[in-house]
């Protein structure tokens, strides 16, 4: 039998991890990694934190190069799949035959225009890659007034960094900051800290629009308007799957994976681009640890097929903003009041929320703890008396 050919499209964290994991597990076939980014891979979470504050350089956040045997096609995009011939078509006209394909093309910033919420002529800024981060870092020197549209994780981390750099910051969204992502008790902690540091928070359930032309004004449905020297949209990301048009691999706008990261026979996907079936249907889970989990499963499936261990997400989420370091193991958002397992607001807290199925979500607030111990709390249900937690 000829040597098996695996092509991984997308030099994202997921893509690089699939390649690395395949070789570490002894894959002996041909392996090709296609990536269209002009830079070598770098650590994206660091962009909104250390890189933006000036503490990091691109060199210091670069990911180590793959040292295993892999044919890397850098700076060239995949433009399609020839399904009959089982070939990837590249932008430079080259074709890569494959037995197995792994789709790891990641995601890009979603815009208010994508959501139909921007006037024509608006010049919209987003924050996703190193050039966005460089642009913002240079602008922050002059302490511009900053308006951020979107009070999710990225929007609030940007707000924290901009406020720390001396800018007046307003965050506008249709809902309260982080409420949908974290649940009430944790999001209140963060929102209170943001307000204490002078950030203005505004929301209206009927939504937000970008108005005007050039740098837009941000308008809430009740007519309140916010103007800034700098307006940044942080309204999520959208998967890079245009190159898969006409392949039949896209269902309802998603590349859907099963619990072994399979999309179709011989075709797998992992990372920000992939939608995995959870309690609420297929959803993308564009987080660091999710990309790692899926990449490990994809590699295992390529080697073991049905014998591979299925994907069991082990959610691990963290954020650092407004002086709060939050780490969470288990499902989010959390509902109801937490149990205080240990600590106090002054020395840091360990909290759990039982899920009613014998497990729990566990959070460490400003408290260092080995991840193994935080994860252990998700498997036990402490019986302490619930209490209201405030800073």
């Amino acid at each position: 039998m000829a040597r098996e050919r695996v092509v991984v499209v997308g030099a994202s964290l997921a893509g690089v991890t699939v390649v690395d994991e395949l070789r570490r597990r002894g894959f002996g076939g041909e392996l090709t990694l296609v990536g269209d980014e002009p830079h070598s891979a770098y650590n994206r979470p660091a962009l909104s934190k250390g890189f933006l504050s000036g503490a990091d350089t691109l060199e210091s956040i670069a990911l180590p190069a793959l040292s295993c045997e892999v044919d890397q096609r850098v700076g060239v995009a995949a433009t399609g799949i020839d399904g009959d011939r089982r070939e990837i078509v590249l932008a430079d006209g080259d074709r890569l035959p494959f037995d197995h394909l792994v789709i790891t093309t990641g995601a890009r910033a979603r815009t208010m225009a994508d959501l139909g919420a921007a006037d024509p002529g608006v010049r919209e800024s987003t924050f996703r890659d190193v050039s966005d981060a460089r642009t913002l870092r240079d602008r922050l020197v002059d302490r511009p007034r900053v308006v951020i549209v979107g009070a999710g994780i990225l929007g609030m981390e940007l707000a924290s960094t901009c406020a720390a750099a001396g800018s007046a910051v307003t965050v506008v969204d249709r809902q309260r900051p982080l409420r949908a992502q974290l649940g009430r008790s944790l999001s209140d902690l963060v929102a209170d800290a943001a307000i204490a540091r002078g950030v203005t928070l505004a929301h209206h359930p009927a939504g937000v629009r970008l108005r005007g032309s050039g740098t837009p004004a941000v308008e809430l449905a009740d007519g309140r308007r916010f103007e800034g020297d700098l307006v940044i949209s942080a309204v999520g990301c959208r998967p890079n799957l245009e190159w898969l048009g006409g392949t039949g691999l896209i269902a309802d706008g998603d590349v859907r994976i099963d619990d072994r990261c399979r999309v179709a026979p011989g075709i797998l996907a992992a990372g920000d681009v992939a939608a995995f079936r959870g309690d609420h249907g297929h959803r993308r889970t564009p987080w660091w640890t999710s990309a790692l989990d899926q990449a490990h499963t994809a590699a295992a499936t390529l080697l073991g097929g049905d014998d591979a261990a299925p994907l069991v997400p082990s959610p691990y989420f963290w954020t650092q903003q407004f002086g709060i370091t939050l780490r969470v193991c288990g499902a989010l958002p959390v509902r109801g009041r937490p149990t205080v397992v240990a600590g106090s607001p002054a020395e840091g807290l360990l909290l759990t929320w039982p899920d009613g199925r014998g497990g729990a979500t566990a959070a460490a607030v400003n408290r260092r703890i080995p991840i193994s111990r935080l994860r252990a709390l998700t498997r036990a249900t402490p019986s302490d008396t619930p209490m209201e937690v405030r800073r």
Partner: protein
Amino acid sequence: MRLTIDRDRCEGYGLCAETAPELMHLDDDGELVLDHEDVPARSSTAAETAVRVCPVAALRAD
């Protein structure tokens, strides 16, 4: 190959220790401890992987 931790950056997320438990662990206070600063040759790819999974780029292999 030699591993180094940037203590100012390390937040103790622990993904590196889960990736390469033969090279490092988190102590009871959640601080990362390198058990082998000089990486044995057989563990060099594990070390590179541990560097890659750190979400705050706090670990380096040179």
